[in-house]
């Protein structure tokens, strides 16, 4: 493949297709086994980030490359100090001016002296992108840059991409969000299972054909659960939240979920959605309000164990850090919350464990060689299925899903969606948090929109549109100015 100056070249493929590896090679983090990268007709010296950067190839990796204890300015300059070196001294004033300039360029006003660890995820992502802009770049690699950005922030990033493009910078853009690709890209390269599949002009493709290239098979297009179960109105709610508040995080949150219902929770990153979910599940404390579960209020100071015992389940936001014990086996991960079930008088009973593990793997369609394989050997989508699967076995009455398809490829995404619908059909109440509007729209019976810690509105799932959700999600000032 090749990248031309002044174009946005999108890189697509399911998880595990080799995109991230390719990017790591291009940016000099790791060495390829064979092959070369040509740069202006000459082979590029690989394996050293510095020499690659010196050629003007800069990468923004999927995980924000930030150092939480350092302030924004230092973050921008670490590893690139040569830009501000005067003799043996770092020139702080140069650093300051340059940093301000870059961040202003990105449309961000960040306090330069605040440790980045105290900033929001989106701000961190901005700092991470800012790092790449410090140098005069000729090729910019963006790996899932919008994963943790809200719609508004993504918008300003897209603008920036356009400007850079006009300046003649070649951009390699990786994203799972197909809408973005169709909006930004000039050409698309598709990878599958570590091999090149095709490179084509975006104009010659539509969503279906692109997906087909990526998965190598047909996928039924998204259906929408058009029939929200009407009778659910009469049933008592599984969960009722009354005036839940936590100072500085969320305020006066009240809602209820019926069994069999999928309640979507939409809003910008930082609107307090995950925090509410964590409070319900007993991870974080809250200051005021009441959580009524199955008709009786949860006592103050309840813990995760209490909620799990009572039949709640949560798929946390960060799969690798919070969802899985990666080096342990698929089976162990699947059975981790239910271990006490297999406790015999002489110890854990291996046979029923094996059987349950196997049946879960089949039920969820987890692709693994054996149940004894470590979870980290699986692709992102399959890992996510484990995280969901470990709760499926317990037949939860309330299922909280926080960004269940973040960083999951299209094929697996469909399967996750199918699982969520199945769960609801079996009578579980589902609280779905997602930043992807199509996902929320296609799954939810009802949608709550949050903004700055308060509920801004509630829409029936089959009546909502993307524009509506976005409008509600934006803070007042921005809406007025927009």
């Amino acid at each position: 493949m090749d990248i031309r100056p002044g174009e946005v070249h999108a890189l697509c493929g399911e998880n595990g297709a080799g995109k991230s590896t390719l990017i790591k090679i291009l940016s000099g983090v790791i060495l390829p086994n064979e092959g070369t990268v040509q740069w202006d007709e000459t082979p590029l010296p690989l394996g050293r980030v510095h020499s690659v950067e010196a050629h003007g190839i800069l990468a923004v990796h999927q995980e924000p490359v930030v150092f939480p204890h350092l302030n924004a300015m230092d973050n921008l300059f670490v590893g690139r100090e040569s830009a501000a070196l005067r003799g043996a001294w770092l020139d702080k004033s140069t650093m300051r001016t340059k940093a301000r300039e870059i961040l202003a360029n990105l449309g961000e006003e960040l306090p330069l002296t605040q440790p980045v660890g105290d900033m929001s995820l989106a701000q961190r992502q901005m700092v991470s992108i800012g790092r790449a802009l410090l140098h005069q770049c000729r090729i910019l690699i963006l790996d899932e840059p919008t994963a943790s950005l809200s719609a508004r922030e993504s918008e300003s990033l897209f603008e920036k991409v356009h400007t850079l493009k006009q300046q003649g910078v070649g951009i390699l853009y990786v994203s799972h969000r197909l809408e973005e690709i169709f909006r930004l890209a000039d050409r698309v390269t598709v990878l599958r299972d570590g091999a090149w599949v095709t490179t084509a002009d975006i104009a010659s493709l539509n969503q279906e054909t692109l997906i087909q290239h990526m998965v190598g098979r047909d996928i039924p297009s998204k259906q929408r659960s058009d029939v929200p179960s009407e009778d659910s109105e009469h049933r008592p709610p599984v969960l009722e939240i009354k005036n839940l508040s936590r100072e500085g995080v969320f305020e006066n949150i009240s809602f209820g979920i019926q069994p069999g219902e999928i309640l979507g929770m939409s809003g910008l990153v930082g609107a307090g959605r995950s925090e509410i979910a964590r409070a319900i599940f007993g991870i974080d404390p809250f200051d005021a309000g009441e959580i009524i579960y199955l008709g009786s209020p949860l006592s103050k100071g309840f813990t995760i164990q209490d909620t799990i015992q009572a039949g709640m389940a949560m798929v946390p936001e960060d799969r690798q850090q919070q969802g899985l014990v990666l080096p342990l086996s698929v089976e162990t991960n699947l059975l981790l919350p239910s271990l006490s079930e297999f406790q015999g008088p002489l110890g854990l009973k291996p046979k029923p464990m094996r059987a349950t593990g196997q049946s879960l793997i089949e039920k969820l369609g987890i692709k693994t060689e054996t149940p004894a394989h470590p979870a980290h050997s699986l692709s992102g989508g399959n890992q996510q299925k484990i995280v969901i699967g470990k709760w499926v076995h317990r037949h939860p009455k309330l299922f909280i899903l926080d960004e269940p398809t973040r960083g999951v490829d299209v094929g697996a995404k469909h399967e996750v969606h199918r699982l969520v619908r199945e769960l609801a059909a079996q009578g579980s109440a589902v609280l779905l948090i997602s930043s992807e509007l199509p996902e929320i729209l296609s799954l939810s019976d009802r949608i709550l929109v949050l903004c700055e810690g308060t509920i801004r509105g509630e829409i029936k799932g089959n009546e909502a549109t993307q524009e509506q959700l976005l409008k509600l999600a934006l803070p007042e000032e921005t809406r007025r100015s927009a």
Partner: protein
Amino acid sequence: MTDTTTANTTPPLKRALIFLLSHRAAGLFLFILLLLGIVSVVNPAFLEVQNLKDIAVQAAPVCIISCGLMLVLVSGEIDISVGSMMGLLAACMGAMVSESRGHLPPGTAIVLTLGIGVVIGLLNGWLVAYAGVPSIIVTLGMLTALRGVTEIVMGGSWITDLPDGIRFLGTGAFMGVPISLWTALGVILISLWLIHRTAIGRRIYAIGSNPHAAYLAGLPIRPLKLFVFAWTGLLTGVATLVSVPQLSVVDSGIGVGLELLVVTCVVVGGTAVSGGLGNLSGVLCGVILMTMISTVLIFMKLGENATYWSRAIQGLFILGAIIADHWISRQRKS
């Protein structure tokens, strides 16, 4: 912006306390002043210049090593071999200059001592960065092994004939201020420059703060780790040179338990063991506080009983620092 709103609703006294505790140096400094106030009421002799000078001289080597160890902790590693390293370096230095053993000129001996310090530091660093052994294991092994080497170097007898040239480093003064204090001052200035005004310093913080991001950013993690250990080795050598010649006899027990004191100082000074966090002013206050405590206990004239409880009091001080930390982070969150 939510932060400011919360801050405004908190009572000012509590806010001040939070500020002091979160700026470790300021909090420790106030605590030191408080301690000074109490002890000088009980026994005004404490505030005499000579006494303060003595405390400073005792603190100097600890301070010098702490400057190095802080960087090790900031980079996300630990070094608990400094005590034994000092023992070995003292033995080597003594053996080199002693008239009955090596009889080298002091200048050569100084350079060689520093060189040995750097070499041991490099060995530590190499094992950590390139052989991939966890630093606590490497330096725990070194803590034991170097003590054994020291015994072998000393060979059962002590060095009692240090020449005046070397003794001057420990007992001499320049403009009325002991050499060791000048050295400590120099080391502090160099460390400040290293931390704030060089790429190396900023990168050390970066690799400790988020190693994976450092890897993606292409930072030279291994050389940097090698550097912090070598730097600590060098500073241990410097500390040996200015503190051991304060005494006339080099014995084989020099530096026993020093690693615990230094780690305590650095941690009380607000450096995170998990890396990425730590500042020199906090560490300096930590050093002063920890070296002061035992002197303060003596000056309080609490009697024989206090002797037996002094170690317990030191332990409680560290626990106090931890609890304060915990409290502050909780206050910050809510």
